[in-house]
């Protein structure tokens, strides 16, 4: 009996994860502990930063927007040339209050891991 050839399954990228974030030199966003969406909203309401890490820019951006929308009216800023080569795009509240940011990874830009 001929062995059945395994069918190649289409690879599905893992879902994005939400992490606490701090900022480092050269625009770096340093990812901390993984947290839930509810915890991310609470962290942002307390003025802290969070970062969405994942393979797909669209998925990351959508999740970042969803978190930020739960905090209040917001806007999206692309990375700034002088913030450093490792800066990430981010959402923040229009009023800057609370002052935290929701960063997200893109195909080209990634958060740094804690040393």
């Amino acid at each position, binding site marked *: 009996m001929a062995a059945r050839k395994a069918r190649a399954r289409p690879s599905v990228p893992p879902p994005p994860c939400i992490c606490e974030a701090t*900022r*480092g*030199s050269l*625009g770096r966003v340093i990812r901390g502990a993984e947290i839930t969406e509810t915890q991310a909203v609470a962290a942002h309401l307390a003025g802290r930063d969070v970062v969405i890490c994942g393979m797909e*820019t*669209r998925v990351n*951006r959508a999740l970042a927007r969803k978190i930020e929308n739960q905090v209040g009216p917001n*806007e*999206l*800023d*692309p*990375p*700034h*040339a*002088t*913030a*450093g080569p490792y800066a990430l*795009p981010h959402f*923040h509240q*229009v*009023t*800057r209050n609370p*002052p935290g940011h929701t960063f997200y990874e*893109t195909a*080209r830009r990634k958060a740094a891991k804690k040393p």
Partner: protein
Amino acid sequence: MRYFTPELLLRFRSLDDDVADTAEAAWEQAIKRYRRHWKKISPQLPESVRRFHDEYCLHDADVFGPAKLSVQTLPWGFHDVVLVAQPLNPSFPEHPNTLLFLQYAMAAEPIVEVPVRADAFHLERPTWLYDEFDLIEPGVFVHEILLSDGRVVKLRFRELRFHLATIIEPAEEGRKVPVTGKAVSA
């Protein structure tokens, strides 16, 4: 703005993923192009401009101005223009609770335009978004700044000076604070 244009920023902020993805790629290209441009012109820029560029990131800073200094503000130059920014970027913790005064000795009248009107530009509490320097001719430079309310400030200048000032915070409870020449108890 030649690189970080308001139009490109609006496309980056689009809710249409196709538009936003294309804009993201274009923004990355704009950063690369601007870095090449900066590398090319920076040897011909004043030392103060290079220092400002290398040491400060005013993204998200609250911005007041531009404002023209007048004859009454001697000893400033009669045609100097100032911008005041309050940096908020915690990536630069050496500048907490400070105001940065940017003072330009102008080579031409300042230009303030709103090239694109859109709801995405919020009129309240303008903040610094993106900026670019350029060299017009030897000794004449331009600084263009895109603000969050959609304004593009274009300053053609001969000299840039900047001053960092520390904001005076309220005293802690129980400490005496001199106010208008008097010491008062909190």
